[in-house]
């Protein structure tokens, strides 16, 4: 069963916190991975790989550049699950 937006956000935040040490409260839908959360491309690819596994979705490499904000990633995952 597909997860709701807030559940995906929570799960994604767990990954981001584990990988980067960023405070969970900072992982909000409108935050940009690079500009706000200071996540570099290697960390981003790590987060994507872990998110694919956690949510059982496929996020193609060429799609990753479109995931600018946390909200973009959450939306992509929610839709990919459907």
């Amino acid at each position, binding site marked *: 069963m597909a997860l709701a937006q807030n559940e995906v956000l929570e799960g994604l935040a767990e990954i981001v*916190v*584990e*990988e*980067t*040490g960023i405070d969970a409260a900072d992982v909000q839908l409108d935050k940009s991975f690079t500009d706000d959360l200071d996540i570099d491309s*290697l*960390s981003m*690819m*790590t987060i994507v*790989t*872990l998110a*694919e*596994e956690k949510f059982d979705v*496929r996020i193609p490499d060429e799609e990753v550049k479109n995931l600018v904000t946390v909200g973009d990633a959450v939306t992509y995952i929610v839709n990919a699950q459907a």
Partner: protein
Amino acid sequence: MTVVVTGLGTTSPLGGDVASTWEGALAGRSGVRTLDNDWHEKWGVPVTFAGQLAVRPEEVLSRPETKRMDPSAQMAIVAAREAWSDAGSPEVDPERLGSIVSSGIGGVWTLLSAWDTLKERGANRVLPLTVPMLMPNSPTAYVSLEFTARAGAHSPVSACASGAEAIGMGFEMIESGRADVVIAGGTEAAIHPLPITAFASMQALSKRNDDPAAASRPYDVKRDGFVLGEGSGVVVLESEEHAKARGARIYARVLGLGMTADAHHIAAPEPNGAGQTRAMELALERAGLTTADISHVNAHATSTPVGDMIEARGIRALLGSHADQVLLSATKSMTGHLLGGAGALESVFTIKALETRTAPPTINVDEPDPELQVDLVRDTPRALPAEGQLAAINNSFGFGGHNVAVVFGTA
């Protein structure tokens, strides 16, 4: 130019820092225990014990740090942070600060776990940080990043001599004028079923599974191989001028360095120890010392039937009758063999021995090899001369025929 040691750090099978490790060594404790896993039952891994860290890095590092670094780099960072803070966190121009931290094997846990992931879960699951984690220069790179060391970051690889070679190169980096301060040392995290099996397959490891704490027994007649250990040792090296200008505490001086190669066999030491002896001779020569100036030797002595006595005979031949006045310690009897970390941890031991004028013990020598003609410190520490300048040699040798001798002197 004189090079001094102003900071020490370690995480070892005896303790999570220098104080606890040194205290454990003086007490003659063994850091070797049975491994809590099923590697033997599952795959027939023939050796079931090792010298595992007393304090796991994940107990002191943040979660992201442990996820981004191979255990070998994690251990180096733990030791480097201690050494740096012990040195008083020196203010130094980043372009005059170097990092030389070696590993003998590299990120073997990362490499083999990633291979497992690829086989079991497919290519999509291999994480993008795999390469920066497995590369053998990862520990020195992370140390360079953490302390903004821009004079150069190096990681000389010479198997079990790597850690000593790193400290030797750090000495040369300052002596040659490339840096004022160098964070130097070695690290190893190879207690993994594959390296254990591979070392056992070459008959290098002790198989004393029923009595792990007694397995590392350099010079004892019943020695049957080395015991794998893990951990890191790091020292802060500094030009004397730089150290004095900032009023730093000076533990010891680095007086000399000798590095040679056997060019004899890929794994076996040259049977007469000529290359080992020449390394010690070159180190003494460079230090401007004679054999009579040496009070203490921290031997490579890994507890292998052949290797221990080649080194011991070489030391006796080099020192002659003065060998009777030299206290010899084989600290691997307590820590196991840290491979790329060994020469660095044992440099820390050698420096502490000079600082405290106390030679640490060698444990498990129930019956010394009848050929042994050196004054081996057994079971309890012994005092080095209370007065005057002292000098000590730290020997480290590695598969591939690498011989490194570093001479340290009292501050």
